[in-house]
């Protein structure tokens, strides 16, 4: 990364600007990717340390979301550029309030921002989910492969039935 040479003048000036942009994009992406990999390694090391450490018993594991392949928030949840957007429903649930339920906070540490994806209509709002149900639910919501996503929802349904 860093300031590069000035683009020379001439009729192909625009193409030269684009070439320079592409070069710098490549260098920038590589630098960011290197940092991402470093962070991912550190987090993996930390998680394995947590599991091996004195406080890493089964009852003490922190509820962490699915890290998946390390995808970042902009891949899933944010839009790019100035594209126009479509209409949709608000989609607010009613799981707020003081649901008396042991377990987690409904959070997913480490996962980055994303909107829900195709929640089937028969799926309840999740307000009474326990940790396992919530993890399956979150995994299904993040899954981009439709077959795998449906399999996860089916898993969720089965688990909820067995509760």
């Amino acid at each position: 990364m860093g300031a590069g040479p000035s683009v020379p003048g001439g009729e192909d000036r625009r193409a030269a600007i684009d070439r320079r942009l592409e070069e710098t994009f490549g260098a920038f992406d590589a630098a960011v990717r290197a940092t991402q990999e470093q962070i991912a390694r550190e987090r993996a090391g930390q998680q394995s340390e947590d599991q091996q450490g004195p406080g890493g018993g089964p009852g003490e594991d922190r509820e962490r979301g699915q890290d998946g392949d390390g995808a970042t928030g902009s891949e899933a949840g944010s839009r790019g550029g100035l594209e126009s957007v479509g209409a949709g429903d608000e989609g607010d649930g009613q799981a707020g309030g003081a649901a008396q339920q042991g377990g987690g906070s409904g959070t997913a540490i480490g996962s980055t921002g994303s909107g829900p994806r195709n929640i089937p209509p028969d799926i309840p709002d999740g307000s009474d989910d326990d940790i396992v149900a919530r993890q399956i639910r979150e995994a299904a919501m993040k899954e981009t492969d439709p077959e795998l996503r449906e399999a996860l929802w089916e898993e969720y349904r089965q688990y909820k039935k067995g509760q």
Partner: protein
Amino acid sequence: MSTVRYSIAVAALAVVSAGCVVQETRPLPQMQATQATQEVGEERLIDVGIRLFDPGIPKEVEEDPEKADEERIYPEIRRAEARYIPTRLRETLVGTAQWGAVRVVPSQVDSTDLIVSGEILESTGAELKIRVRAEDATGREWLDKEYEGPADTRSYREGGNLGRDPFQNVYVTIANDLLAARKALSDEQLETVQRVADLRFASGFAPAAFEEYLGKDDKTGRYEVIRLPAENDPVLERVAAIRERDENLIDTVSDGYTAFSERMDEPYSNWRRYTYDEIKAEEKLKAQARTRMALGALAVAAAVLVPDSCGSSNCARITDAVRYGAAAGGVAAVMSGLKKREESKIHTETLKELSSSFESEAAPLVVDVEGRTLRLTGTAEEQYAEWRRLLHELYVEDTGLARGSSVADGASGATSPGAG
């Protein structure tokens, strides 16, 4: 490893505090943030940037360690919490699936749809109090409120509810308030927020090309879209490519803060758990000391004031006995009060030790994460300067604008990653 060192310190201090276990209080309701039950439309998927919080360290505390102990504001711990708390809030928001990308961002970032900032007012193992503000890209305020809550002691119990933050209810309340604020806005208003955020970002990179699209009301300070650029605008296409990279960079910075929080999780949880006990024990003993000394003083005063109006020797003996008994009881109560006060000092000292130990644990973690953030954003700033120049050249090429015109023409402070 430093965590081990801290654990040993905690264990040793836990022994000193004589078999302390988390003192139970009435169970708090465990609130859950409102989750999306169906896909949220793109126009309502607002991206959220949660800035690092203001640690809320008073100047006198920063300068005087004794004040820090007195006020229970430990600067290094506060600096760590200023990074940890936004991460917990982020996790809560992500868990609702109500939002677009949710990131923890450095303080200069303002190019996202909604910026949440906050200040720590009080943070101990027993209580959390923070002030939170949220403002969207147009300048509309979504909320500006203080949030507070006691610790849910179930999170401190061994084998208990350890997956849940003791102050999760505070984060849930903020998440639900943000959602309520979003629900109060129409699709059109939310679309405008997103467009303004995009245009502010674009203006930061190519001010000359985008200044005609974005207006700012001088009176209200609010931004508005004057008109939209053409979809095939050549500068816009490049800006979109840069935006993608900027978001990737901010994601990486945010991931760095998540990694920081994960490293801090265990020592911080231990610190909060043990300080909770110490705080509660200290408060209880101080209250007992105050009560006993006050009652003792009253008893002694009553003894002095026992009426001396007996006409017989029996009456006089009884009066003397009452006077002696009251005085002795009063003195004993005062002594007991003093003892309680001394006992409470042990807990005060333990609190200091625990906090000092955790401060030495947290400080290098903060230095690490900030060092990496600065390296990343610093080099990005250099690159952004070049991109600004290239975009300006492209704009000049397209419009035939004089080549000598300034790159920063119309730009204001758009030098940082994520700055719009």
